[in-house]
């Protein structure tokens, strides 16, 4: 088991290394940040000075190495636009994004699990139909559209929930719901199809023959087997949540990573862009690693195979 984890860790690190190069190149590709921060009538000398000051006149390889070197210690440089250390900005914004994603994920799973299992157990009945409708809608609705409507009506007209900011628990609800909607759809479908398949299997039949109560057959014997693909997708979805949060964060004025990225990109703020993409990638890699480990925990066949 330990070997398994270490091996996966190594693979993740390699992937990250490749990604850091890509990130570096991409950030530089957005253009020259100096156009944004220097006044219109700045002279060539001003440009040269600013460039030297920001270290942008060094050869690319050197810039890359210093970027990596400092990134490893947590120093992502200074935001060109905000004049503050990027790590500080990250520290402010990242937790917000994580919290929102976790909230959305938690709520979605809490809804998707019982719905998916019941839809399978009571296949063909009202519950099943309702679940299928939810699933299809969830994957077809454009989230930002729903978000706008929600902001206007629930927050604006009805004043039930706050429209923006990340202050209270209540302010998590709308953005969380908007974000998590499609997760509910996807998860529920997966669970339903997984359960349907497992409920048909020989070992479930044998469990019933042994006299195991139907409840236990469904929620213990069957579910654990159906979880396998669900776990994989849960990881993917979490990563997707964090990365597509840009749109939701914009609509709900959520002070998270997405907004930071958006502002950074539009102002060609290299350090910020690099940092955000890198952090996102690390996050995704970490989540994938966790998923693989949970996967191995659930399915012993993975553990002992190589």
């Amino acid at each position, binding site marked *: 088991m330990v070997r398994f984890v270490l091996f996966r860790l190594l693979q993740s690190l390699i992937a990250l290394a490749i990604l850091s190069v890509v990130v570096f190149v991409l950030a530089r590709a957005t253009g020259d940040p100096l156009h944004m921060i220097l006044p219109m009538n700045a002279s060539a000398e001003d440009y040269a000075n600013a460039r030297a000051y920001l270290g942008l006149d060094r050869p690319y390889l050197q810039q890359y190495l210093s970027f990596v070197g400092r990134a490893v210690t947590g120093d992502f440089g200074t935001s060109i636009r905000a004049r503050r250390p990027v790590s500080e900005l990250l520290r402010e914004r990242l937790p917000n994004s994580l919290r929102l994603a976790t909230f959305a994920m938690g709520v979605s799973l809490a809804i998707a699990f019982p719905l998916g299992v019941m839809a399978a157990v009571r296949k063909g009945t009202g519950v099943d139909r309702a679940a299928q409708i939810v699933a299809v809608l969830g994957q077809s609705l454009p989230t930002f559209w729903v978000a706008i409507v929600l902001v206007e009506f629930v927050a604006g007209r009805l004043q039930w929930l706050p429209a923006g900011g990340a202050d209270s628990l209540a302010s998590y609800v709308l953005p969380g719901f908007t974000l998590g909607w499609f997760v509910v759809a996807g998860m529920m479908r997966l669970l339903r199809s997984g359960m349907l398949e497992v409920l048909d*299997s*020989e*070992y479930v*039949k*044998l*469990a*019933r*023959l*042994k*006299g*195991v*109560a*139907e409840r236990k057959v469904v929620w213990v*014997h069957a579910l*654990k*087997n159906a979880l396998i693909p669900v776990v994989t997708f849960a990881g993917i979805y979490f990563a997707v949540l964090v990365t597509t949060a840009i749109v939701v964060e914009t609509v709900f004025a959520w002070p998270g990573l997405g907004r930071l990225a958006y502002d950074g990109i539009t102002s060609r703020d290299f350090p910020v862009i690099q940092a955000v993409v890198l952090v996102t990638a690390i996050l995704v890699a970490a989540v994938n690693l966790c998923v693989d480990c949970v996967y191995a925990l*659930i*399915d*012993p*066949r993975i553990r*002992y195979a190589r």
Partner: protein
Amino acid sequence: MPAVIDVRDLRTHIVTRWGTIKAVDGVSFALEDGETLGLVGESGSGKSMTCLSIVRLVPRPAARIVGGAVRLDGDDLLTKSDAEMQQIRGRKVAMILQDPMSSLNPVFSIGMQMREPLTMYHGLRGSAVAARAAELLDAVRIPSPAARLRAFPHQLSGGMRQRVVGAMAIAGPPRLLMADEPTTSLDLTIQAQYLGLLKDLQQRHRFAMIFVTHNLGIVARTCDRVAVMYAGRIVEMGPVRRIFTEPTHPYTQALLASIPRFGVRRERLTAIAGQPPDLSRLGAGCAFAPRCPAAFERCAEAPPETTVAAGHVTRCWLHGG
């Protein structure tokens, strides 16, 4: 001695898009302690469905038991509630399925799967469970039983898995054990061992056994009586010796004739002419008539069960009725 299991006129129907299938159409038999009944027939003859009907685990919602009585030690199982049936399954009536690869839950250890029946049937806890589980594994001749408890199904061979399933089946110990082609997926060399194991267990615990198979050789070795099924009905039933030496029903005769035998020269292998019947379109007469070489006008009417000799019954107009 009262019968352990007494099935009377059991009927199970399956509703499909193409019509209603009479999967089990009036099956009756009785077994005593330590007796083994072989249930023989082609696919679709109703052998497995009969066993599932006994424990009321027919695949719902399409299949339903529509009539008859199933008495276990005098108690009619068909009148019991779901909760009562759940108590009976496994504990009083156990079943072994065909494919050992898929009978065991791949994500739970052997120990956990063995613990379950022990806790459910006997309320054992803690170390008593592990001890008893190891005992059971030992009873089915699995080496190093204690270590095996921690293993997972994919780490065992097919033969061992089937033994584990057997161990779980005798955890009750049950009054009736139904084995649905338990050796079909095993290697030939293992088959004989497994059959021997089942007989030993039966000797020890004195349960009645129903052995579903299409292999007449196994029937000859392990069963006391045999019932031949066709299209949901028992067409002939009797002591093994008699059925093999003096089969009365044309279908039984055809089955026996189609077994290739060493030392007997034959021009070609005899197969049974025609195709298995469409169970949703059974007529009122004998179901085998279309394929029967000896069919005559009377066969348009369903033959009743007639006693040919002591303990030997048949459903064929050729033998009175």
